[in-house]
C-alpha cells in the first residue's frame, strides 16, 4: 500500500511538473478526483503531454481510445495503478 501511495505521489509530481500546473501542489491532487474535464480540468493537449512524460519516465504507452480509457485516465489513482501494472521492470 505504501508503494501505491508513493507512486501516486510520484505521478502527481510528474503531472504538476510536465503540465506546468501553477498553484497546484502534488499533495493537493485528490487521488480519486477526475483528472480531465472537471476536477483538475485537464484537456486533450494535456493528455498528449502527459502521455509523453509517462512514456519517458515509466516506458508505459498510454491509449486515449482504449475501451478502458475513461477508467485509466479517470483519476490519479487509476492512472497510477495502470502505470504500475504495465511498467517495465
Amino acid at each position, binding site marked *: 500500500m505504501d508503494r501505491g501511495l508513493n507512486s501516486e505521489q510520484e505521478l502527481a509530481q510528474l503531472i504538476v511538473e510536465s503540465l506546468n500546473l*501553477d498553484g497546484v501542489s502534488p499533495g493537493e491532487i485528490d487521488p480519486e478526483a477526475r483528472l480531465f474535464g472537471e476536477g483538475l*480540468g485537464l484537456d486533450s493537449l494535456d493528455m*498528449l503531454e502527459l502521455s*509523453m512524460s509517462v*512514456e519517458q519516465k515509466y516506458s508505459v504507452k498510454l*491509449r*486515449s481510445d482504449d475501451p478502458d480509457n475513461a477508467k485509466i485516465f479517470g483519476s490519479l489513482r487509476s492512472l497510477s495503478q495502470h502505470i504500475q501494472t504495465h511498467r517495465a521492470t
Partner: protein
Amino acid sequence: MMLPLAGYRTGSDAVLLGLDGLISASVFFRRVHELASMLPDAPFVINLSESRAGFMMGFAAALVRRQTSLFPAGQGRGDWEQLTQRYPGAYIVSDRAVDASHTFDLRPWLAMDSMAVPLASLEPEGMQIPVVPADFRAAILFTSGSTGHPTAHAKSWGQLAVGAANLSTALGWSPSMACAIVGSVPPQHMFGLESTVLLPWHAGIPVHAHKPLLPADLEAALTQCACPCWWMTTPVHMRPPLQAATSLDGLAGIVASTMSLPPALAIAAETKWQVPVLEIYGSTETGALATRRTSTDEWWTPLPGVELTTRAEGERQQILAAGSHIDVAVLLSDELRLGPDGRFLWLGRSADMLKIAGKRASLSALNRWISEIPGVDDGVYFVPDAAGDAASHDDAHPTRRLVAFYVSATLSPEEVRAALRGRVDPVFVPRPLVRVSQLPRNENGKLAQAALAALFSQFQQTGQTVSNSCPSRPAVPLRQPLRVSMNHPAIAGHFPGNPIVPGVVILSHVTGAIAQQLPGIALVKLLSMRFHAPLRPGQAFNVFAEMRGNDLSAHVHVEVREEGGPLSSCRLIATGQWAAGAGFSADAGR
C-alpha cells in the same frame, strides 16, 4: 444540379474501419437512409459526434433529410448551447451522452457488431449513394470571432464536394488510390471536415472510425486499418510519436494543417517514417487553398481553380482568394507574397488570430474575456515564443499553451481559471495564469509584447513576479484621494442608470492635481489624453504626476480604491501627456 454524396465504386468498398472490422458502403448507406427516416423534423441539426463513425452517419443522414448540419467550434457546453438558441428548432446528434433537451442519441446506430462484416465474407452488393442538390446549404461551421461571439460560415454541398475534389487533385491522389485515412483532428473543423470526411467520401476510400490522439492510439489505428494510411493531423499531434520514436508501420503519408508546421518537424517526420509530409494552407472561410511539401518547399501551390489576387488598401496590400469551392471571394487575414508562377510565400498571420490544436480564438477577445471577469481589474494573454520555447526545452513542451497575467484584489488563479473555463475552449485556458500587482502598461496604457515577455521570463526564472505597485508612482500623490461625487452636474446625463465620470471631468481633476503636486510647472499644451477604464462617481482616485527626462512632459496615473476600503488595486483609469512650461527640471516640484 445534384451531386453524389460519395464516390465508392462498389457496395463492398469499406467506408469505416475500426476495432471490429469494417463497414461496407452498402451497409453504411442502408443505415444512413434508415437513420434519416428516424431523425426528428427540424431545419438544423448540431452534430457533436466525436468519433468519425458517428459524425459521418449523422452528417450523411442530415444531408439525406435536407437538414443543415451545425458544427460548433468546440465540444464545450458554451460552444453548442448558444447555437440551440440562435437556431430555433435545432436538435443535437451525438455519439455520447449530452445533457440537453433536444438530443438524438446515435449510439444505438453505431454498434459495430450490427454492421461490421468480416473481410472474407464480402460479396459485391448494391448500394444506394444519396444525391444532394449542389446549392443545398449542407453545413454551417463556427469560428470564434473577434467579438467573442462565434462567426457562422455556411457551406453549400457543391462547395464541399468540389473542394474535396480539388484537394484530392492537389494531394496527387489518383482515382484508383488504395489507402485509408486516419484522423487526429475533430471533424467539426474545416480541415478535419475536408480531410477526414469529404476527402474519403470523394475518393471512395475508408476512414478509421475513431480519433486516435496518443502515439499508441495511432499505432493501433494503423494496425486495424491494415492498409497504407494517410494521417490527417496537426504539428502538435506529430511531436509525441516522433519523440517516442513510434514506428508507425503502415503509414503512407501525413497531411498537417491548423497551424504552421515548422520545417524541422516536417523533415524529422519524413526522415523517421519515410513518408511525404504535406501541409495545407487554408481557412474556415475558404477551405483548403494551397499545399506544399514543407521539408523541401517554402512556396505554396494553390489548389486547382484557386485564384489569388491583390488589392491595394491604402498602404497595405490585401489578398483576395477566389475559386470553384469558394462562394464569394474572401479577403485573407494573412500576408502573402505572390510569385509570377501563381505560387506564393506566407509572410505572416494577422497577429490577432490564434490557432491552437485546430481551435482558433481572437487574442483581443480572450483579453476581453479575462478582463471582464467580475473581480479582475486588468488582464492580458501572452503567447510565449514557440521557437524559443522549443529551443530551450528541446521539445519538452511542444504545445503552445497560452500564458495570462491578471490583476485582482480578490480572485485566486484557480477562481479566474474556473471563470475562464466556462467561457473559452479548454485549449485557451492559460497556463501558467499569473497573478500580478499590475500589468506593465506603458504611458499610453498599451502593453508591449517585449514588456510581457520580460514579465514572463521573470516569472519562469523566479516563479513569481516582482511585487510593486503602480508602474511609475514617482512624485508625491495627494494626501487625500480625490472623488467625483454623484451630485456632480455632469453625472446626471452620463449615463442614466450607468453613471460614469466623463473624461473631461477627470481631466480637470488631473490638471488641478498636477498644479498641486508640481506647483512650479505650467501645462502648456495637452499632447494626449487616454481613458482606459471607467471611473464611477464616489470612487476614490489618486493622480501621480511625473516629469520624465528633460522632455518637459507630464505623465499621469490614477489609482482607484473602493469606498472606505484600503487601496485595493491601481487600475489605470487615464493617462495624459503634456508639454510643460520651459525652465523647470524634473526636480522642480519635489
